[in-house]
């Protein structure tokens, strides 16, 4: 096992900068998600760490050892591919055995290790099958068993759950996490699914246009996004634009919004405030409690979407559509067209520079 340090890595393909001075420290034994839209460079970064491609500049270290010019076959990493990449000409057991047999391990050792790995992914009885006889979820497990049998220093997963349907995906998320904890391997996981990144990882790195936008534990990124992109890409956010007042912003119509955290911005600078839809409370005019020390806006319900355990209200206020998510408690049903008061605390509001 080992941590991975990526320092100032850049990689261009022609004029396109796929990675632009990216530095991330992947702690030993951690579960790390690289999140970003397609073309953000997340897969390029994973391929640099794997060794399929070398950076133009910068340093990559696995377990403290510089590897940026070491080819993949010498890096001792395990990789799971989006399409599983199982060898169709081999049985499941031979697929899993591959990494050990190319090293020339004795047959008896290989057989025992293969059984152990297949048991770990709960496919102990399917060793004799061919990959095409397995379901998508089972193939995924075989790919995982094959990647970890060589006891790699790092496990790299390239959108491993992307091809599975939703129910199976949730099951595999739990399973993957269990296996990762069990063997304690440093895991780097590329995904464009923000929910997957939030639920599975200890830390998340958000990439955009080849740059690392923000990096940290999922709660921190969710609660304290540093940019509009981070706020809207990881979860939903209402964004207010205005001028900085130092502890918040002033909207163009003069309304002040107070922020409890965020960047230090000089008064007068263009700034934005972000607030999560579930942090806003919604009241009918009459029921609105005292509004001391709170952000308060008046608006009109323009649409309500019922989603079972919650309802999403779209509230129009000064030409802007605000999103509010309310837990379904069975009482506070508001009609479309109704005048409402929105109220949320400054602690739920993050101030950031306008991008």
């Amino acid at each position, binding site marked *: 096992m080992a941590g991975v340090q990526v320092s100032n890595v850049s990689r261009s393909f022609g004029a396109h900068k796929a990675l632009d001075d990216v530095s991330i420290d992947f702690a030993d034994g951690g579960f790390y998600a690289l999140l970003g839209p397609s073309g953000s460079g997340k897969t390029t970064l994973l391929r640099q760490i794997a060794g399929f491609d070398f950076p133009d500049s910068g340093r990559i270290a696995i377990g403290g050892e510089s590897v940026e010019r070491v080819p993949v076959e010498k890096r001792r990493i395990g990789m799971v591919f989006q*399409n599983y990449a199982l060898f169709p000409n081999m049985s499941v057991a031979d697929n899993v055995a591959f990494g050990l047999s190319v090293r020339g391990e004795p047959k008896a050792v290989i057989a025992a290790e293969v059984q152990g790995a297949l048991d770990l992914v709960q496919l102990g009885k399917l060793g004799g099958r061919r990959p095409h006889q397995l379901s998508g979820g089972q193939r995924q497990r075989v790919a995982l068993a094959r990647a970890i049998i060589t006891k790699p220093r790092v496990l790299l997963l390239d959108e491993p759950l992307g091809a599975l349907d939703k129910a199976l995906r949730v099951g595999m998320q739990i399973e993957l996490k269990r296996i990762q904890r069990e063997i304690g391997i440093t895991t780097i996981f590329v995904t464009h699914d923000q929910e997957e990144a939030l639920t599975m990882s200890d830390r998340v790195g958000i990439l955009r246009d080849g740059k690392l936008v923000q990096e940290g534990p999922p709660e921190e990124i969710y609660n304290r996004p540093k940019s509009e992109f981070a706020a809207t890409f990881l979860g939903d956010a209402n964004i207010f634009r205005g001028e900085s007042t130092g502890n918040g912003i002033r909207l163009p119509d003069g309304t002040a919004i107070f922020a409890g955290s965020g960047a230090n911005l000089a008064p007068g600078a263009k700034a934005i405030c972000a607030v999560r839809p579930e942090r806003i409370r919604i009241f009918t005019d009459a029921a609105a409690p005292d509004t001391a020390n709170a952000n308060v806006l008046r608006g009109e319900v323009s649409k309500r979407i019922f989603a079972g355990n919650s309802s999403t209200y779209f509230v129009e206020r000064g030409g802007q559509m605000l999103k509010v998510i309310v837990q379904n408690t069975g009482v506070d049903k508001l009609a479309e067209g109704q005048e409402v008061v929105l109220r949320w605390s400054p602690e739920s509001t993050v101030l950031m520079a306008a991008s």
Partner: protein
Amino acid sequence: MAAQVAAASRSGLRSALPLLAPAYLWLTVAIFLPLSAMVFFSLMTELPLSGKPWAFTLENYTAFFSQSLYLTLLLASLRLGLEVTLWCIIVGYPAAYVLAKVLKGRSREAIFLLVILPFWSNGLVRIFSWAMVLREGGILDTALNAVLPFKINIDLMYSYPAVIIGLVHSYVPYMVLTCYLTLQAIDDSLIEAGRSLGASRLQMLKRVIIPLSMPGLVAGAALIFVPVVGSFMEPRILGGRTGTFYGTVIEDQFVAVFNWPLGAALSFILLAVVLVILAVASPVLRRAM
């Protein structure tokens, strides 16, 4: 249930008939009828066209066994077929690999065109241009002597190697094309997965790439082996006196000696031998695929 399935497949066949008919009609007229005529000839003492009296006989077939020459030549032709097939694999497979897995875009198209080019030139022209290259004082001889500091004498014309060179040149595109198709179908991520597991390039080739491209190798080998065993043009022109093979003897019966019955009989013996070889090899090949 079974009757239903049978009925369904019958009606499927009926609707497919208009699509199948042209090809099978053509095959019947162009191949089956002449072949039947040849079977008929091979059982005659004389060609009926010559006006001489004729009778049915098996002598044309027994001739093959009464003279050891025919068997010797057949074995030589089979060996030629094996060697040419092997050389086509050695030359064609790496080229197919590079085309399918290394080159991309324009350069792939250009190289591909060069591979297919022999198909577009006349076979006879191709063979005679090899003659220009291989003979003493020919292009190869002159070029090598111009480059090398010492005098060497290259005269490959009218030799076994010349026959091999000519045949490999004619047939290697088949191997390149069939292998290219199967190699291209191998997902690049399989190769990456193998490398990430620590496999060397040679190990990947042996354990993943060759097994997965086996159908292409087998198809290419079958496409090359069968016609090469019966080939006569390349052996005759490039082999000269050393180029006597089973195929040239058959050709002689038709164009020189006018003993069509014997030529036909020898052809059918060759056909039978090739079919037996393919039948014996097919379980092995099927397992490989």
